[in-house]
Protein backbone atom coordinates (compact mmCIF):
# COMPACT_ATOMS: atom_id res chain seq x y z
CA UNK A 1 0.00 0.00 0.00
CA UNK A 2 2.98 2.30 -0.18
CA UNK A 3 3.65 5.19 -2.47
CA UNK A 4 7.14 4.70 -3.78
CA UNK A 5 9.18 7.23 -5.72
CA UNK A 6 12.34 6.07 -7.45
CA UNK A 7 14.82 8.48 -8.95
CA UNK A 8 12.18 10.94 -9.89
CA UNK A 9 13.57 13.95 -11.69
CA UNK A 10 11.97 16.88 -13.43
CA UNK A 11 13.74 19.61 -15.34
CA UNK A 12 12.20 22.50 -17.18
CA UNK A 13 13.62 25.04 -19.58
CA UNK A 14 12.41 27.96 -17.59
CA UNK A 15 13.35 26.95 -14.05
CA UNK A 16 16.07 24.36 -14.46
CA UNK A 17 16.10 21.32 -12.22
CA UNK A 18 12.91 21.19 -10.20
CA UNK A 19 13.15 17.71 -8.75
CA UNK A 20 16.51 16.06 -8.45
CA UNK A 21 16.61 12.29 -8.23
CA UNK A 22 14.03 11.87 -5.52
CA UNK A 23 13.58 8.43 -4.01
CA UNK A 24 11.41 7.75 -1.04
CA UNK A 25 8.83 5.36 0.28
CA UNK A 26 5.71 6.86 1.81
CA UNK A 27 3.90 4.36 4.02
CA UNK A 28 0.18 4.46 4.70
CA UNK A 29 -1.22 5.53 8.02
CA UNK A 30 1.44 8.18 8.60
CA UNK A 31 1.70 11.88 8.20
CA UNK A 32 4.74 12.99 6.26
CA UNK A 33 5.71 16.62 6.45
CA UNK A 34 7.56 18.26 3.62
CA UNK A 35 9.39 21.27 4.84
CA UNK A 36 11.52 23.63 2.85
CA UNK A 37 11.75 27.07 1.37
CA UNK A 38 9.31 28.18 -1.24
CA UNK A 39 11.30 26.98 -4.23
CA UNK A 40 12.53 23.82 -2.65
CA UNK A 41 10.30 21.54 -4.69
CA UNK A 42 7.60 20.63 -2.22
CA UNK A 43 4.76 21.70 -4.47
CA UNK A 44 6.42 20.17 -7.51
CA UNK A 45 6.79 16.87 -5.73
CA UNK A 46 3.13 16.88 -4.88
CA UNK A 47 2.13 17.83 -8.38
CA UNK A 48 4.28 15.03 -9.74
CA UNK A 49 2.55 12.54 -7.47
CA UNK A 50 -0.84 13.88 -8.48
CA UNK A 51 0.06 13.69 -12.14
CA UNK A 52 -0.18 17.41 -12.77
CA UNK A 53 3.55 17.62 -13.41
CA UNK A 54 4.98 15.17 -15.92
CA UNK A 55 8.21 13.57 -14.76
CA UNK A 56 11.25 13.31 -16.98
CA UNK A 57 12.77 10.21 -15.45
CA UNK A 58 12.22 7.81 -12.63
CA UNK A 59 9.05 6.13 -11.60
CA UNK A 60 6.21 6.55 -9.17
CA UNK A 61 4.30 3.50 -8.05
CA UNK A 62 1.38 3.13 -5.71
CA UNK A 63 0.65 -0.33 -4.44
CA UNK A 64 2.87 -1.70 -7.10
CA UNK A 65 1.00 0.00 -9.91
CA UNK A 66 3.12 2.30 -12.05
CA UNK A 67 1.54 5.70 -12.13
CA UNK A 68 2.90 6.27 -15.57
CA UNK A 69 0.04 4.20 -16.84
CA UNK A 70 -2.54 6.03 -14.81
CA UNK A 71 -3.86 9.38 -15.89
CA UNK A 72 -4.68 11.95 -13.22
CA UNK A 73 -8.29 11.00 -12.88
CA UNK A 74 -7.50 7.41 -12.10
CA UNK A 75 -4.90 8.00 -9.45
CA UNK A 76 -7.14 8.50 -6.44
CA UNK A 77 -5.21 11.46 -5.11
CA UNK A 78 -6.86 14.16 -3.05
CA UNK A 79 -5.31 17.61 -2.87
CA UNK A 80 -5.94 20.58 -0.63
CA UNK A 81 -4.29 23.74 -1.89
CA UNK A 82 -3.23 26.87 -0.14
CA UNK A 83 -5.70 28.74 -2.31
CA UNK A 84 -9.02 27.19 -1.32
CA UNK A 85 -10.10 25.63 -4.58
CA UNK A 86 -13.80 24.98 -4.63
CA UNK A 87 -16.21 24.88 -7.50
CA UNK A 88 -17.62 28.40 -7.57
CA UNK A 89 -20.94 27.56 -9.09
CA UNK A 90 -21.80 24.65 -6.82
CA UNK A 91 -23.15 24.85 -3.28
CA UNK A 92 -21.18 23.52 -0.33
CA UNK A 93 -23.12 20.28 -0.43
CA UNK A 94 -22.74 19.89 -4.17
CA UNK A 95 -19.05 20.62 -3.86
CA UNK A 96 -18.51 17.80 -1.43
CA UNK A 97 -20.77 15.40 -3.26
CA UNK A 98 -19.08 15.95 -6.59
CA UNK A 99 -16.04 13.66 -6.22
CA UNK A 100 -18.15 11.02 -4.56
CA UNK A 101 -20.52 10.90 -7.51
CA UNK A 102 -17.55 10.75 -9.85
CA UNK A 103 -16.33 7.80 -7.89
CA UNK A 104 -19.53 5.95 -8.57
CA UNK A 105 -21.40 6.26 -5.33
CA UNK A 106 -25.16 6.37 -5.63
CA UNK A 107 -26.86 9.66 -5.00
CA UNK A 108 -28.18 8.79 -1.57
CA UNK A 109 -24.92 7.29 -0.44
CA UNK A 110 -22.95 10.23 -1.73
CA UNK A 111 -25.19 12.60 0.13
CA UNK A 112 -24.77 10.70 3.36
CA UNK A 113 -21.02 10.64 3.17
CA UNK A 114 -20.91 14.27 2.15
CA UNK A 115 -23.09 15.35 5.02
CA UNK A 116 -20.93 13.45 7.47
CA UNK A 117 -17.83 15.10 6.17
CA UNK A 118 -19.34 18.56 6.24
CA UNK A 119 -20.42 17.90 9.74
CA UNK A 120 -16.91 17.00 10.76
CA UNK A 121 -15.59 20.35 9.62
CA UNK A 122 -18.42 22.17 11.30
CA UNK A 123 -20.20 23.59 8.28
CA UNK A 124 -23.56 21.86 8.52
CA UNK A 125 -25.36 25.18 8.62
CA UNK A 126 -23.97 26.28 5.32
CA UNK A 127 -25.02 23.51 2.99
CA UNK A 128 -26.68 25.71 0.42
CA UNK A 129 -24.18 28.50 0.30
CA UNK A 130 -21.87 29.02 -2.60
CA UNK A 131 -18.15 29.32 -1.83
CA UNK A 132 -18.11 33.02 -2.60
CA UNK A 133 -20.51 33.54 0.28
CA UNK A 134 -18.17 31.95 2.81
CA UNK A 135 -15.20 33.28 4.72
CA UNK A 136 -11.67 32.13 3.94
CA UNK A 137 -11.59 29.68 6.78
CA UNK A 138 -14.94 28.24 5.82
CA UNK A 139 -13.91 27.85 2.20
CA UNK A 140 -10.83 26.01 3.27
CA UNK A 141 -12.96 23.72 5.37
CA UNK A 142 -15.15 22.95 2.38
CA UNK A 143 -12.05 22.03 0.40
CA UNK A 144 -10.96 19.89 3.30
CA UNK A 145 -14.34 18.20 3.65
CA UNK A 146 -14.32 17.43 -0.04
CA UNK A 147 -10.90 15.89 0.05
CA UNK A 148 -11.46 13.95 3.22
CA UNK A 149 -14.79 12.49 2.25
CA UNK A 150 -13.15 10.85 -0.72
CA UNK A 151 -11.12 8.55 1.46
CA UNK A 152 -8.39 8.60 -1.15
CA UNK A 153 -5.32 6.57 -0.62
CA UNK A 154 -3.12 9.57 -1.13
CA UNK A 155 -3.82 12.88 0.59
CA UNK A 156 -1.71 15.86 -0.39
CA UNK A 157 -1.97 19.13 1.48
CA UNK A 158 0.06 22.04 0.17
CA UNK A 159 0.45 24.70 2.88
CA UNK A 160 -3.29 24.60 3.46
CA UNK A 161 -3.26 26.96 6.41
CA UNK A 162 -1.09 29.62 4.85
CA UNK A 163 -3.86 32.05 3.99
CA UNK A 164 -5.73 31.85 7.22
CA UNK A 165 -5.43 34.01 10.27
CA UNK A 166 -3.38 32.98 13.24
CA UNK A 167 -6.09 31.72 15.55
CA UNK A 168 -7.78 29.69 12.84
CA UNK A 169 -4.48 28.15 11.93
CA UNK A 170 -3.87 26.95 15.42
CA UNK A 171 -7.35 25.54 15.68
CA UNK A 172 -7.26 23.71 12.38
CA UNK A 173 -3.82 22.33 13.05
CA UNK A 174 -5.12 20.49 16.03
CA UNK A 175 -8.09 19.24 14.07
CA UNK A 176 -5.81 18.06 11.28
CA UNK A 177 -3.84 15.94 13.66
CA UNK A 178 -6.97 14.18 14.81
CA UNK A 179 -8.33 13.72 11.31
CA UNK A 180 -5.12 12.35 9.88
CA UNK A 181 -4.56 9.96 12.67
CA UNK A 182 -7.85 8.35 11.85
CA UNK A 183 -7.00 7.73 8.18
CA UNK A 184 -5.27 4.44 8.71
CA UNK A 185 -4.71 3.31 5.17
CA UNK A 186 -3.93 6.57 3.46
CA UNK A 187 -0.61 8.19 2.74
CA UNK A 188 -0.80 11.75 3.97
CA UNK A 189 1.74 14.31 2.82
CA UNK A 190 1.62 17.83 4.19
CA UNK A 191 3.81 20.65 2.96
CA UNK A 192 4.74 23.67 5.01
CA UNK A 193 7.41 26.33 5.31
CA UNK A 194 6.96 26.78 9.03
CA UNK A 195 9.07 24.69 11.35
CA UNK A 196 6.68 24.90 14.28
CA UNK A 197 3.89 23.46 12.16
CA UNK A 198 6.13 20.64 11.02
CA UNK A 199 7.10 19.81 14.53
CA UNK A 200 3.54 19.81 15.82
CA UNK A 201 2.01 17.72 13.09
CA UNK A 202 4.53 15.33 11.79
CA UNK A 203 5.22 11.72 12.17
CA UNK A 204 8.10 11.97 9.78
CA UNK A 205 9.69 15.07 8.41
CA UNK A 206 11.29 15.39 4.98
CA UNK A 207 13.45 18.45 4.54
CA UNK A 208 13.64 19.60 0.97
CA UNK A 209 16.07 21.94 -0.64
CA UNK A 210 16.59 22.73 -4.31
CA UNK A 211 14.60 19.76 -5.48
CA UNK A 212 16.24 17.21 -3.23
CA UNK A 213 15.33 15.54 0.01
CA UNK A 214 18.23 16.54 2.21
CA UNK A 215 17.15 14.86 5.42
CA UNK A 216 14.29 12.87 6.80
CA UNK A 217 13.48 11.60 10.25
CA UNK A 218 11.33 12.15 13.28
CA UNK A 219 10.76 15.72 14.40
CA UNK A 220 13.13 15.32 17.31
CA UNK A 221 15.84 13.83 15.12
CA UNK A 222 15.63 16.53 12.51
CA UNK A 223 15.42 19.28 15.04
CA UNK A 224 18.22 18.08 17.27
CA UNK A 225 20.48 16.64 14.60
CA UNK A 226 20.17 18.69 11.43
CA UNK A 227 22.52 16.94 9.05
CA UNK A 228 23.71 20.11 7.43
CA UNK A 229 23.68 23.84 7.76
CA UNK A 230 21.05 23.87 5.02
CA UNK A 231 18.72 21.76 7.07
CA UNK A 232 19.53 23.75 10.16
CA UNK A 233 18.59 26.92 8.38
CA UNK A 234 15.33 25.50 7.06
CA UNK A 235 14.21 23.90 10.28
CA UNK A 236 15.04 26.72 12.66
CA UNK A 237 12.59 29.36 13.52
CA UNK A 238 13.78 31.80 14.82
CA UNK A 239 16.85 31.43 12.61
CA UNK A 240 19.98 29.69 13.78
CA UNK A 241 23.10 31.80 13.78
CA UNK A 242 25.92 30.24 11.84
CA UNK A 243 29.43 31.64 12.05
CA UNK A 244 32.76 30.60 10.54
CA UNK A 245 35.39 29.59 13.11
CA UNK A 246 38.63 27.71 13.42
CA UNK A 247 39.52 25.15 16.02
CA UNK A 248 43.05 25.43 17.34
CA UNK A 249 44.92 24.97 20.54
CA UNK A 250 41.90 24.03 22.58
CA UNK A 251 39.95 27.09 21.52
CA UNK A 252 37.23 28.08 19.16
CA UNK A 253 38.39 31.16 17.35
CA UNK A 254 35.90 33.43 15.64
CA UNK A 255 36.82 35.51 12.65
CA UNK A 256 37.14 38.68 14.65
CA UNK A 257 39.59 37.26 17.13
CA UNK A 258 37.12 36.54 19.87
CA UNK A 259 37.62 33.07 21.19
CA UNK A 260 36.31 30.76 23.82
CA UNK A 261 37.36 27.34 25.08
CA UNK A 262 36.45 24.27 23.08
CA UNK A 263 33.47 22.44 24.55
CA UNK A 264 33.98 18.83 25.49
CA UNK A 265 32.14 17.32 22.56
CA UNK A 266 34.35 19.05 20.05
CA UNK A 267 37.67 18.13 21.59
CA UNK A 268 38.27 15.18 19.32
CA UNK A 269 38.06 17.07 16.10
CA UNK A 270 41.03 18.02 13.97
CA UNK A 271 42.18 21.53 14.03
CA UNK A 272 41.05 23.62 11.12
CA UNK A 273 38.17 25.60 9.75
CA UNK A 274 34.60 24.84 10.70
CA UNK A 275 31.27 26.51 11.19
CA UNK A 276 29.41 26.73 14.45
CA UNK A 277 25.74 27.15 14.86
CA UNK A 278 23.68 28.18 17.81
CA UNK A 279 19.97 28.55 18.31
CA UNK A 280 18.54 31.96 19.02
CA UNK A 281 17.13 30.97 22.36
CA UNK A 282 20.46 29.53 23.50
CA UNK A 283 22.32 32.78 23.13
CA UNK A 284 22.49 34.83 26.29
CA UNK A 285 23.04 38.53 26.65
CA UNK A 286 25.71 39.33 29.12
CA UNK A 287 26.70 42.32 31.14
CA UNK A 288 30.27 42.03 30.03
CA UNK A 289 32.63 39.63 28.42
CA UNK A 290 31.65 37.37 25.54
CA UNK A 291 31.30 38.60 22.00
CA UNK A 292 30.45 42.20 21.37
CA UNK A 293 28.28 43.65 18.70
CA UNK A 294 25.83 46.34 17.65
CA UNK A 295 22.09 45.79 17.44
CA UNK A 296 20.82 46.11 13.91
CA UNK A 297 17.18 45.04 14.20
CA UNK A 298 14.70 44.37 16.95
CA UNK A 299 11.55 42.34 16.36
CA UNK A 300 8.97 41.93 19.07
CA UNK A 301 6.82 38.91 18.32
CA UNK A 302 4.33 37.43 20.67
CA UNK A 303 5.95 37.30 24.04
CA UNK A 304 9.53 37.26 22.84
CA UNK A 305 11.97 39.73 21.48
CA UNK A 306 14.24 38.84 18.60
CA UNK A 307 17.41 40.85 18.50
CA UNK A 308 19.64 40.88 15.45
CA UNK A 309 23.17 41.74 16.34
CA UNK A 310 25.94 42.71 13.99
CA UNK A 311 29.21 41.40 15.34
CA UNK A 312 32.54 41.50 13.57
CA UNK A 313 32.34 37.72 13.43
CA UNK A 314 29.05 37.69 11.61
CA UNK A 315 25.36 38.33 12.20
CA UNK A 316 23.82 36.71 15.24
CA UNK A 317 20.19 36.42 16.24
CA UNK A 318 19.20 36.04 19.82
CA UNK A 319 15.85 35.50 21.38
CA UNK A 320 14.95 37.04 24.69
CA UNK A 321 11.99 36.07 26.79
CA UNK A 322 9.59 38.85 27.45
CA UNK A 323 9.61 42.26 25.93
CA UNK A 324 12.81 44.18 26.31
CA UNK A 325 13.55 47.75 25.67
CA UNK A 326 16.58 47.43 23.48
CA UNK A 327 17.22 49.85 20.69
CA UNK A 328 18.80 49.62 17.29
CA UNK A 329 22.30 50.96 17.45
CA UNK A 330 22.96 49.97 21.05
CA UNK A 331 25.95 47.89 21.90
CA UNK A 332 25.36 44.54 23.40
CA UNK A 333 27.47 41.73 24.77
CA UNK A 334 26.43 38.20 24.10
CA UNK A 335 27.56 34.83 25.28
CA UNK A 336 27.54 31.69 23.22
CA UNK A 337 27.50 28.84 25.73
CA UNK A 338 29.88 26.17 24.51
CA UNK A 339 27.60 23.30 25.40
CA UNK A 340 24.89 24.66 23.11
CA UNK A 341 27.00 24.91 20.01
CA UNK A 342 26.59 22.90 16.85
CA UNK A 343 29.67 22.12 14.86
CA UNK A 344 29.56 21.82 11.09
CA UNK A 345 32.21 21.11 8.50
CA UNK A 346 32.87 23.87 6.07
CA UNK A 347 30.82 22.00 3.50
CA UNK A 348 27.91 22.14 5.89
CA UNK A 349 27.85 18.59 7.20
CA UNK A 350 27.06 18.09 10.85
CA UNK A 351 29.82 17.05 13.25
CA UNK A 352 28.47 17.74 16.66
CA UNK A 353 25.05 18.53 17.97
CA UNK A 354 24.49 19.81 21.51
CA UNK A 355 21.54 17.51 22.13
CA UNK A 356 23.00 14.25 21.02
CA UNK A 357 23.80 11.60 23.58
CA UNK A 358 26.89 13.17 24.96
CA UNK A 359 30.50 12.28 24.92
Amino acid sequence: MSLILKNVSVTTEKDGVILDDISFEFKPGRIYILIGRTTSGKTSLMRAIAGLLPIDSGEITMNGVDFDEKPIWERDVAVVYQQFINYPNKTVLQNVEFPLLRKGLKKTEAREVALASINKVGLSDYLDRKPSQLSGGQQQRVALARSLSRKSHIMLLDEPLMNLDYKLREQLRVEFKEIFNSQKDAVTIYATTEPPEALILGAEILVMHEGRIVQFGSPTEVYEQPQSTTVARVISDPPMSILPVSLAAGEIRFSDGYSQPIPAKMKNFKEGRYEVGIRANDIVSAKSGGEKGVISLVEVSGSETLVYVDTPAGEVVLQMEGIHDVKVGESISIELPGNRLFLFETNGALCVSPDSAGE
Partner: protein
Amino acid sequence: MKKGYPRFFLLPGLILLIAIIIFPLLFTIRVTFSSWNVSQSGLNFIGGENWSEMVRDTRYWGSLLRLFYLSFLTVAIQYALGFAIALFAWKGIAARRFFRVLWLIPMMTTPSLMAIIWRSIFTEDIGALNGLLSRVGLNPVNWLTESGPANIAITIVEVWQWTPFMFLILLAGLLSLPKEPFMAAAIDGASAWKTFARVTFPMMAPISIGAIMIRLIDASKIFDSVFTMTRGGPGNATETPAAYIFQRSLQDFQIAYGSTLALMYLILAILTLTIIGKVFARLSKPRGI
Protein backbone atom coordinates in the same frame (compact mmCIF):
# COMPACT_ATOMS: atom_id res chain seq x y z
CA MET B 1 -0.21 13.59 -20.66
CA LYS B 2 -3.54 12.28 -21.67
CA LYS B 3 -3.45 10.76 -25.10
CA GLY B 4 -6.18 12.01 -27.37
CA TYR B 5 -7.93 14.45 -25.10
CA PRO B 6 -6.21 17.65 -26.19
CA ARG B 7 -7.00 16.72 -29.76
CA PHE B 8 -10.64 16.25 -29.02
CA PHE B 9 -10.88 19.91 -28.13
CA LEU B 10 -8.88 21.53 -30.85
CA LEU B 11 -9.29 19.38 -33.90
CA PRO B 12 -12.99 19.64 -34.69
CA GLY B 13 -12.88 23.42 -34.91
CA LEU B 14 -9.52 23.50 -36.62
CA ILE B 15 -10.47 20.94 -39.21
CA LEU B 16 -13.80 22.58 -39.86
CA LEU B 17 -12.11 25.91 -40.43
CA ILE B 18 -9.40 24.48 -42.62
CA ALA B 19 -11.88 22.52 -44.66
CA ILE B 20 -14.08 25.51 -45.27
CA ILE B 21 -11.27 27.89 -46.06
CA ILE B 22 -8.31 26.05 -47.47
CA PHE B 23 -9.92 24.27 -50.39
CA PRO B 24 -11.60 27.39 -51.70
CA LEU B 25 -8.36 29.26 -51.25
CA LEU B 26 -6.37 26.68 -53.15
CA PHE B 27 -8.96 26.73 -55.89
CA THR B 28 -8.73 30.48 -56.11
CA ILE B 29 -4.99 30.28 -56.54
CA ARG B 30 -5.38 27.79 -59.35
CA VAL B 31 -8.04 29.83 -61.09
CA THR B 32 -5.82 32.87 -61.29
CA PHE B 33 -3.71 31.02 -63.78
CA SER B 34 -6.62 30.33 -66.07
CA SER B 35 -9.12 32.34 -68.02
CA TRP B 36 -12.17 30.74 -66.65
CA ASN B 37 -15.59 32.18 -66.71
CA VAL B 38 -18.46 30.19 -65.38
CA SER B 39 -19.60 28.84 -68.68
CA GLN B 40 -16.55 26.69 -69.34
CA SER B 41 -16.40 23.30 -67.82
CA GLY B 42 -12.67 22.87 -67.29
CA LEU B 43 -9.74 25.01 -66.28
CA ASN B 44 -7.22 25.99 -68.88
CA PHE B 45 -3.81 27.38 -68.17
CA ILE B 46 -2.73 30.76 -69.39
CA GLY B 47 0.27 31.38 -67.23
CA GLY B 48 0.66 34.79 -65.70
CA GLU B 49 -1.62 36.73 -68.06
CA ASN B 50 -4.10 37.62 -65.37
CA TRP B 51 -1.34 38.75 -63.12
CA SER B 52 0.25 41.02 -65.65
CA GLU B 53 -3.11 42.51 -66.51
CA MET B 54 -3.62 43.21 -62.85
CA VAL B 55 -0.38 45.12 -62.67
CA ARG B 56 -1.63 47.46 -65.37
CA ASP B 57 -5.07 47.85 -63.84
CA THR B 58 -5.07 51.41 -62.60
CA ARG B 59 -8.63 51.21 -61.42
CA TYR B 60 -7.59 48.36 -59.12
CA TRP B 61 -4.61 50.12 -57.65
CA GLY B 62 -6.66 53.25 -57.31
CA SER B 63 -9.18 51.34 -55.26
CA LEU B 64 -6.45 49.92 -53.07
CA LEU B 65 -4.98 53.33 -52.40
CA ARG B 66 -8.43 54.68 -51.66
CA LEU B 67 -9.05 51.86 -49.23
CA PHE B 68 -5.77 52.57 -47.52
CA TYR B 69 -6.68 56.18 -46.88
CA LEU B 70 -10.26 55.40 -46.04
CA SER B 71 -9.54 52.67 -43.55
CA PHE B 72 -6.82 54.57 -41.72
CA LEU B 73 -8.85 57.75 -41.64
CA THR B 74 -12.03 56.11 -40.42
CA VAL B 75 -10.28 53.99 -37.82
CA ALA B 76 -8.39 56.99 -36.49
CA ILE B 77 -11.59 59.01 -36.16
CA GLN B 78 -13.41 56.05 -34.66
CA TYR B 79 -10.65 55.62 -32.12
CA ALA B 80 -10.54 59.24 -31.06
CA LEU B 81 -14.30 59.62 -30.86
CA GLY B 82 -14.78 56.17 -29.39
CA PHE B 83 -12.28 56.83 -26.64
CA ALA B 84 -13.83 60.20 -25.87
CA ILE B 85 -17.34 58.86 -25.47
CA ALA B 86 -16.03 55.81 -23.64
CA LEU B 87 -14.42 58.12 -21.10
CA PHE B 88 -17.68 59.98 -20.69
CA ALA B 89 -19.75 56.84 -20.43
CA TRP B 90 -17.29 55.47 -17.93
CA LYS B 91 -17.80 57.89 -15.14
CA GLY B 92 -18.02 61.33 -16.59
CA ILE B 93 -21.70 62.01 -16.97
CA ALA B 94 -25.11 61.49 -15.51
CA ALA B 95 -27.57 58.96 -16.93
CA ARG B 96 -24.63 56.82 -17.96
CA ARG B 97 -26.58 53.69 -18.67
CA PHE B 98 -28.95 55.49 -20.99
CA PHE B 99 -26.11 56.91 -23.01
CA ARG B 100 -24.28 53.61 -23.06
CA VAL B 101 -27.27 51.92 -24.66
CA LEU B 102 -27.84 54.81 -27.04
CA TRP B 103 -24.28 54.97 -28.22
CA LEU B 104 -24.16 51.23 -28.81
CA ILE B 105 -27.09 51.24 -31.18
CA PRO B 106 -25.43 52.02 -34.52
CA MET B 107 -23.22 48.97 -34.20
CA MET B 108 -26.26 46.76 -33.86
CA THR B 109 -27.85 47.92 -37.06
CA THR B 110 -27.38 46.19 -40.37
CA PRO B 111 -24.67 48.17 -42.18
CA SER B 112 -25.99 47.57 -45.65
CA LEU B 113 -29.51 48.60 -44.74
CA MET B 114 -28.41 51.65 -42.87
CA ALA B 115 -26.42 52.55 -45.96
CA ILE B 116 -29.70 52.69 -47.84
CA ILE B 117 -31.03 55.08 -45.24
CA TRP B 118 -27.88 57.13 -45.53
CA ARG B 119 -28.44 57.26 -49.23
CA SER B 120 -31.83 58.72 -48.59
CA ILE B 121 -30.12 61.28 -46.41
CA PHE B 122 -27.34 62.17 -48.79
CA THR B 123 -29.22 62.00 -52.03
CA GLU B 124 -29.21 65.36 -53.72
CA ASP B 125 -32.73 66.44 -54.43
CA ILE B 126 -34.86 64.67 -51.86
CA GLY B 127 -32.28 63.82 -49.25
CA ALA B 128 -32.52 64.87 -45.64
CA LEU B 129 -29.16 66.57 -45.45
CA ASN B 130 -29.66 68.89 -48.35
CA GLY B 131 -33.17 69.50 -47.11
CA LEU B 132 -31.79 70.64 -43.77
CA LEU B 133 -29.11 72.72 -45.39
CA SER B 134 -31.53 74.59 -47.57
CA ARG B 135 -33.82 75.28 -44.67
CA VAL B 136 -30.96 76.93 -42.86
CA GLY B 137 -30.19 78.92 -45.95
CA LEU B 138 -27.08 77.05 -47.06
CA ASN B 139 -26.41 75.65 -50.49
CA PRO B 140 -27.08 71.99 -51.08
CA VAL B 141 -24.04 69.79 -51.63
CA ASN B 142 -23.74 67.16 -54.33
CA TRP B 143 -23.05 64.45 -51.85
CA LEU B 144 -23.31 61.50 -54.10
CA THR B 145 -22.49 62.98 -57.43
CA GLU B 146 -19.20 64.56 -56.65
CA SER B 147 -16.10 62.63 -55.77
CA GLY B 148 -14.97 64.64 -52.75
CA PRO B 149 -18.31 64.84 -50.95
CA ALA B 150 -18.98 61.21 -51.81
CA ASN B 151 -15.88 60.13 -49.98
CA ILE B 152 -16.82 62.33 -47.07
CA ALA B 153 -20.23 60.71 -47.08
CA ILE B 154 -18.70 57.23 -46.93
CA THR B 155 -16.46 58.33 -44.09
CA ILE B 156 -19.43 59.66 -42.17
CA VAL B 157 -21.30 56.42 -42.65
CA GLU B 158 -18.37 54.30 -41.53
CA VAL B 159 -17.75 56.49 -38.50
CA TRP B 160 -21.41 56.32 -37.52
CA GLN B 161 -21.56 52.57 -37.94
CA TRP B 162 -18.37 51.48 -36.24
CA THR B 163 -17.41 54.03 -33.61
CA PRO B 164 -19.71 52.18 -31.19
CA PHE B 165 -17.60 49.07 -31.71
CA MET B 166 -14.49 50.92 -30.55
CA PHE B 167 -16.58 52.48 -27.84
CA LEU B 168 -17.67 49.07 -26.59
CA ILE B 169 -14.22 47.57 -26.44
CA LEU B 170 -12.66 50.65 -24.89
CA LEU B 171 -15.41 51.03 -22.33
CA ALA B 172 -15.15 47.39 -21.34
CA GLY B 173 -11.45 47.96 -20.93
CA LEU B 174 -11.91 51.08 -18.85
CA LEU B 175 -14.37 49.31 -16.59
CA SER B 176 -11.87 46.58 -15.92
CA LEU B 177 -9.03 48.86 -14.88
CA PRO B 178 -7.89 48.60 -11.25
CA LYS B 179 -8.88 51.49 -9.05
CA GLU B 180 -5.64 51.91 -7.14
CA PRO B 181 -3.64 53.97 -9.62
CA PHE B 182 -6.52 56.42 -9.91
CA MET B 183 -6.81 56.75 -6.18
CA ALA B 184 -3.10 57.40 -6.03
CA ALA B 185 -3.39 60.03 -8.74
CA ALA B 186 -6.24 61.71 -6.92
CA ILE B 187 -4.28 61.80 -3.72
CA ASP B 188 -1.39 63.32 -5.56
CA GLY B 189 -3.70 66.01 -6.83
CA ALA B 190 -3.41 65.23 -10.51
CA SER B 191 -5.64 67.17 -12.86
CA ALA B 192 -8.11 65.40 -15.12
CA TRP B 193 -5.89 65.82 -18.15
CA LYS B 194 -2.79 64.63 -16.33
CA THR B 195 -4.61 61.64 -14.97
CA PHE B 196 -5.71 60.75 -18.46
CA ALA B 197 -2.32 61.23 -20.06
CA ARG B 198 -0.26 59.55 -17.39
CA VAL B 199 -2.57 56.91 -15.94
CA THR B 200 -5.60 56.10 -18.06
CA PHE B 201 -4.10 56.17 -21.52
CA PRO B 202 -0.97 54.11 -20.76
CA MET B 203 -2.98 51.50 -18.90
CA MET B 204 -5.35 51.23 -21.81
CA ALA B 205 -2.53 50.76 -24.30
CA PRO B 206 -2.89 47.01 -24.84
CA ILE B 207 -6.64 47.30 -25.21
CA SER B 208 -6.31 50.27 -27.53
CA ILE B 209 -3.96 48.32 -29.72
CA GLY B 210 -6.29 45.34 -29.78
CA ALA B 211 -9.26 47.49 -30.65
CA ILE B 212 -7.43 49.34 -33.41
CA MET B 213 -6.12 46.12 -34.92
CA ILE B 214 -9.53 44.52 -34.96
CA ARG B 215 -11.13 47.58 -36.48
CA LEU B 216 -8.38 47.84 -39.06
CA ILE B 217 -8.92 44.24 -40.02
CA ASP B 218 -12.60 44.86 -40.53
CA ALA B 219 -12.03 48.23 -42.20
CA SER B 220 -9.78 46.56 -44.72
CA LYS B 221 -12.85 44.88 -46.12
CA ILE B 222 -15.16 47.88 -46.56
CA PHE B 223 -17.94 46.79 -48.88
CA ASP B 224 -21.45 47.14 -47.51
CA SER B 225 -21.64 50.91 -47.34
CA VAL B 226 -19.99 51.43 -50.70
CA PHE B 227 -22.07 48.83 -52.46
CA THR B 228 -25.41 49.99 -51.20
CA MET B 229 -24.93 53.71 -51.00
CA THR B 230 -22.76 54.74 -53.88
CA ARG B 231 -22.08 51.64 -55.97
CA GLY B 232 -18.52 52.88 -55.99
CA GLY B 233 -19.62 56.13 -57.57
CA PRO B 234 -19.66 58.72 -58.73
CA GLY B 235 -17.68 56.87 -61.40
CA ASN B 236 -15.07 55.09 -59.36
CA ALA B 237 -14.60 57.78 -56.81
CA THR B 238 -15.58 55.72 -53.81
CA GLU B 239 -14.81 52.30 -55.11
CA THR B 240 -13.06 49.98 -52.69
CA PRO B 241 -11.27 46.84 -53.84
CA ALA B 242 -14.06 44.62 -52.54
CA ALA B 243 -16.63 46.51 -54.58
CA TYR B 244 -14.49 46.50 -57.71
CA ILE B 245 -13.72 42.80 -57.44
CA PHE B 246 -17.36 42.06 -56.81
CA GLN B 247 -18.27 43.77 -60.01
CA ARG B 248 -15.58 42.12 -62.13
CA SER B 249 -16.25 38.66 -60.80
CA LEU B 250 -19.91 38.47 -60.17
CA GLN B 251 -21.34 41.01 -62.53
CA ASP B 252 -18.92 40.91 -65.44
CA PHE B 253 -18.26 37.22 -64.82
CA GLN B 254 -14.54 37.52 -65.32
CA ILE B 255 -13.95 35.10 -62.55
CA ALA B 256 -10.35 34.20 -63.24
CA TYR B 257 -9.27 37.80 -63.40
CA GLY B 258 -11.42 38.72 -60.46
CA SER B 259 -9.82 35.95 -58.44
CA THR B 260 -6.42 37.32 -59.30
CA LEU B 261 -7.40 40.70 -57.99
CA ALA B 262 -8.91 39.07 -54.93
CA LEU B 263 -5.82 37.04 -54.17
CA MET B 264 -3.57 40.07 -54.48
CA TYR B 265 -5.94 41.95 -52.22
CA LEU B 266 -5.69 39.21 -49.63
CA ILE B 267 -1.90 39.08 -49.78
CA LEU B 268 -1.60 42.84 -49.42
CA ALA B 269 -4.06 42.87 -46.53
CA ILE B 270 -2.18 40.16 -44.68
CA LEU B 271 1.17 41.85 -45.26
CA THR B 272 0.01 45.27 -44.20
CA LEU B 273 -1.85 44.10 -41.15
CA THR B 274 1.00 41.88 -40.01
CA ILE B 275 3.45 44.74 -40.30
CA ILE B 276 1.12 47.05 -38.41
CA GLY B 277 0.62 44.38 -35.78
CA LYS B 278 4.34 44.00 -35.28
CA VAL B 279 4.84 47.75 -35.10
CA PHE B 280 2.23 47.96 -32.40
CA ALA B 281 3.79 45.08 -30.53
CA ARG B 282 7.10 46.85 -30.51
CA LEU B 283 5.53 50.16 -29.52
CA SER B 284 3.93 48.71 -26.46
CA LYS B 285 7.09 47.16 -25.07
CA PRO B 286 9.26 50.12 -24.06
CA ARG B 287 6.43 51.50 -22.00
CA GLY B 288 6.89 48.56 -19.76
CA ILE B 289 3.35 47.36 -20.10
